[in-house]
């Protein structure tokens, strides 16, 4: 496995690309579930960047960071989906733009 000749910036390009796609998803979609999915994509992009950097430096820290990001993502999704269920029950819609009672 050791003659992998991939320059670091290609990997960072990939994670950057994924990050911007995730960001785009959050901005575009109005359904909360899709937004949560986009957030997962962004977090995954960061995880990829960390693992890549870890591999580049040959340290386990990258993967430790990956584990932490994983747990954060999991917790977030749990609470997020719980909220989604409540919102579906309370507002009967998942459209994020409906939620604009507070303004000014």
């Amino acid at each position, binding site marked *: *496995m*050791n*003659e*992998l*000749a*991939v*320059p*670091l*910036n*290609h*990997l*960072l*390009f990939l994670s*950057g690309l*994924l*990050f*911007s*796609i995730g960001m*785009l998803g959050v*901005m*575009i*979609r109005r*359904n909360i*579930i*899709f937004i*949560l*999915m*986009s957030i997962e*994509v962004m977090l995954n992009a960061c*995880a*990829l960047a960390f*693992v*890549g950097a*870890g*591999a*580049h*430096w*040959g*340290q*386990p*820290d*990258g*993967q*430790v960071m*990956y*584990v*932490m990001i*994983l*747990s*954060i*993502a999991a*917790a977030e*999704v*749990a609470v997020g*989906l*719980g909220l*989604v*269920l409540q919102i579906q029950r309370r507002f009967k819609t*998942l*459209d994020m733009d409906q939620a604009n009672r507070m303004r000014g």
Partner: protein
Amino acid sequence: MLETTIFYISAAVALAATILAMTRTNAIHALIYLIVSLLAIAVIFFVVGAPFAAALEVVIYAGAIMVLFVFVIMMLNLGEEGDARERKWLEPSIWIGPATLSVVLLIELIFLIGSVEGQVSQGVVSAKMVGISLFGPYVLAVELASMLLLAGMVGAFHLGRRLLEKRA
């Protein structure tokens, strides 16, 4: 030499899957594409020399989190009228603005990251090494992660409880 090509193939697959995931109107289709993209990334992890991370990615990320999503979507049974509504929400007028923004963001990132040199893989960082550092310097981090998950659980429990009572 093989690994490099595998890396680029899986990168392409990941990118394509994510883009498709973002643009699908049907939640389930989007979810499936997302799982495909996660698996592609797991392959990259493996290639890059982080087998433990790859395994985690497949088992937990694709396995647990995405499955959770499927449960919720099924529970909400968005169904057909959900798709029509999604399509309406996706006319060009909505996503043109954010699209330009993220393109600009992308160009900036490419510029900024472009100048980095150095190869990615310095050899395999085995699960053993990760385990040692996890329970070496990062022992407190693990404890804190557990607290974090506890918080997530309590939060989910609180938000979900009312539902169960209603249903039961």
